């Protein structure tokens, strides 16, 4: 690792000034956990790193709207803060559940919600969960603010739609009455491995009839992706084994899964079929 400049702006104006150069070796960071690994491996050699930790209120906090009950989560919120928030536990329990198998205490104490999304690593656990929850992200830059669905941040393997000078400021997460959610982390080597596949699942069921749902796959593909085909098989239907099997087939058909050290493509497709069926069935009968 070679030397670089580290700046900690206290205003957005200063942050944009430091970031406003056409140079990919000038990067913003939240907790820096992923960035440090890339720097140690010499995959990334920064010239300047811009810490977002002093940007203040807009980037911090977990708050519930008094109107619709939705959450506003500042991008610099650490995973530990999410993990230990009683409000999150009460209204978005899937986030608390996901934290148990996400990295380790040291990483969760430092890593941030925004940095996790901006990293664009398809193996991360939270992006498919945010997507299944219909979360959106507010992005600020020197010319304004825009709000997009979390899924629109990702454009490919470690690639995002964020431009130089864009900063994720906060997430908006609706609380949808009647919906239940779950994250399925499937590992194939050590328990604590990166997932071979991650499935973010969220659904609204009445009895065994699925009124609406979101299925998001990560890790086995180049970016977290909604499985629209599988959702369509299930939406509005009463589940049974045959339907779950068809949903699994649809999921396997609509994804391009690559072989890697966590499993061959045919095996991971098989796991996708099995775990979609199991998870939907478990959530419906929960």
């Amino acid at each position: 690792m070679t030397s670089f400049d580290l700046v900690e702006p206290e205003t957005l104006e200063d942050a944009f000034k430091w970031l406003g150069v056409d140079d990919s070796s000038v990067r913003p960071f939240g907790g820096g956990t992923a960035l440090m690994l890339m720097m140690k491996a010499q995959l990334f050699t920064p010239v300047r790193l811009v810490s977002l930790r002093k940007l203040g209120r807009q980037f911090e906090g977990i708050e519930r709207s008094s109107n619709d009950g939705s959450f506003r989560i500042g991008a610099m919120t650490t995973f530990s803060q999410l993990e230990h928030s009683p409000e999150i536990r009460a209204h978005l329990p899937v986030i608390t559940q996901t934290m148990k198998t996400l990295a380790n205490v040291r990483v969760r104490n430092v890593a941030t919600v925004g940095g996790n999304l901006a990293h664009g690593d398809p193996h991360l656990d939270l992006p498919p969960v945010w997507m299944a929850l219909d979360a959106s992200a507010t992005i600020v830059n020197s010319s304004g603010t825009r709000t997009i669905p979390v899924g629109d941040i990702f454009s490919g393997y470690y690639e995002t739609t964020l431009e130089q000078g864009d900063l994720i400021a906060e997430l908006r997460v609706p609380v949808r009455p009647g919906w239940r959610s779950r994250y399925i982390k499937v590992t194939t080597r050590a328990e604590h491995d990166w997932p071979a596949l991650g499935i973010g699942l969220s659904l609204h069921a009445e009895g065994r009839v699925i009124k609406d749902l979101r299925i998001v796959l990560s890790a086995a593909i180049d970016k977290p992706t909604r499985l629209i085909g599988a959702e369509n098989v299930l939406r509005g239907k009463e589940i049974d084994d045959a339907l779950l099997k068809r949903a699994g087939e649809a999921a396997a058909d609509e994804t391009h899964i690559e072989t890697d050290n966590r499993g061959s493509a045919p095996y991971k497709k098989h796991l996708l079929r099995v775990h979609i069926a199991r998870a939907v069935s478990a959530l419906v009968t929960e």
Partner: protein
Amino acid sequence: MDAVTASPNIGRSIPRLEANDKVTGRIEYIHHLRLPGMLYGKIFRSNVPHARIKSVDVSAAEAVEGVFQVVTIDDIRKVIPHPYYGPAFHDQPILADGKVRFAGEPVAVVLATDKRIAEQAAALIVAEYEDLPGVFDEVDAMTSQTLVHDELKPAATFPDLQHLKGRKGTNIALDYHLVRGDVEEGFAKADHVFEHVFRTQQVMHTPMEPFVSVADAQDGSVTLHTASQGPSFVRIEIARLLGLPENRVRVRVPHLGGGFGGKLYIKLEALVTALSMVARRPVKIALTMEEQFFMVTRHPCTFTIKSGVNKDGRIIARHCEVVWNGGAYADIGPRVTQKAGFTSAGPYDIENVLIDSYAVYTNRPPCGALRGFGAPQTAWAYECHTDMIAEALGLDKIEFRRMNILREGRPQASGTPMVDAAVEQAMDHTLDLMNWKLPFDRGSGKIRRGRGVAIGFKGITAPTTSVAIVNLYGDGSCALYIGTVDMGQGSDTVMAQIAAEVLNIDPAAIKIIHPDTDVTPYDMGTLGSRSTYHMGTAVRLAAEDAKAKIAALAAELGLPEGTNAPLAELLRRKYGMQAGNIIGTGSFIPDYQKPDTKTGQTIKGTPFWGVGASGAEVEVDTETGHFTITKLVNVADVGTAINPKMVLQQLSGAAIMQLGFTTTENMVFRDGQLTNGSLADYKIPNLLDMPREFINDYTQSRQKDGPFGAKGAGESTTIALSPAIGNAIADAIGLFLPDLPITPESIFRALQDANGTPLAGE
């Protein structure tokens, strides 16, 4: 408990002597060492597995501010004219010499005043290669026209490897043979003949403390500060390379953060010595965790095992053909081939045995010793094979073992009798801890449960020597000078307990003088479960020598025999003040008979036997192949447990390590390139991977000629663990898996194949 545990120091779980300094961060590791004027080296490595080097352009690296020099083999040759080293063959160049033989081989080193500058500059080196065809698989290498080495260069350093010649014009570094009876005749007479092929994968030691060495060369002498398991060997080999007498080479070793066989023989030591001579400055190289994959690993192996069995279940003939993938440099691979070779028929009493064991060169990172010297790879084959035969013949798997097990006093395949080897006892204790006789829930629906047992043994490297010095000072306090390296196994504490027992003093008050070849006497190395037995005996002899000298001093002073006058008082009387020393020395080499080179027969091929038994219960999700080890039991014969708590820590540590090699760890290569060379992608087990029930224990037994009945304990629970799990999986799903590691995908594929609906390839 053993009778000897009544003594004050033996069989007592005293705390580790260094525990306080370790947990308060005060213990010395070489990683912390900085010498005045020291340069940091960063290695530039080849990115091709087999090639001639056309050019190495170091100009951009040398232009970086803060770079002292960039060194290649041409610079090294100016200070060391024959820059090749190795314990079995002098086959490894200090830096690549005209050719690279594996992807990751050191080609050049940047020396800089700052390690970050060195790292940055190393990335600017450009090498051009002319690719050569590579050979990666051990079976291919047996017959391949692609030769990894054009010339084989035996080292002849160790007595057990003096016959090494290698086979000219092949990749075979060593072939070892053992012949007992007539195996062909045995097969002809047998009612049934079974043949199976098993494979194990390449894995890595992964010590928490990566390799690190510092050399400080002066004119005509050199001091090495190094994380090594074998300081005496380092001194001998560096002295040979430099043409110096041993007394001009000083090797210092403080504590190690793990070794597991990786830090044996020469690793970074030759390189830092050469660099220090070139630069005329002290030089340090500390590897990253990731670079360790390119230093030394465990041999993959392909084992074809064939057995002739009578209808009553007696095994009457066995042929073992074991091919060991040694990687690009032999390291200690030939000893692995030989040591694991000679026990590869298993702990069974078989009349006709033929063993052919081959160490071959390939274009992979070098392979050496790793906690078991090959015994775990061979046990994987012979113990899965045992269950497969029993299954095919409809025999009870335990009774089949019992019918064939090697009992006390019977000759093992080499002709060396089994003495003080509690094989059956270890199996029985395992069965007890498994509640084997109770009904077993076999699961239902998609969840299938199974259980399995395996036994195994190993011979110990022989003949090897340990020398110890006990120094009692003027006030009666005691220091122990030993070359044994405490790398976490607790040898400092155990050696202190042995000396304390003889001298009747408090072990916690003894100071251990850590290996420093200027001060501590010779020891062959901290390896292969040998220290407690070999060094322990040398320490006992040294303490007894000191005790005899104290008695002689008392007699000289006219005191009655058996006087209880303290030593400090005796020395004060002799010298008139607090002065003088009592120095006791002890040297130990066990009996040994060199095996016949053609038949491998010897009446004393090993000083003692390492013995382990394991049992596993598993739960398999047959829809995904995912499995959980619900119970794991490991039992070792360690003779007397001198420090029971530390013995159990050793047994559990070895078991967890082998659990990784059984289920999660695998160095994956594509075209000779390692594709998962980081701990993010090479998975060692962590707490979440521990079996739900995890029991480690030892038999109540005694190694009669060991110190206070003790023998080694570091490797025993690595031996039988993999096949116990493999056999449990087979019991659950009805299918045997021949290859390690066992993964959910390998289980699922086996199930699909058996169902006639094979899963597509990649």
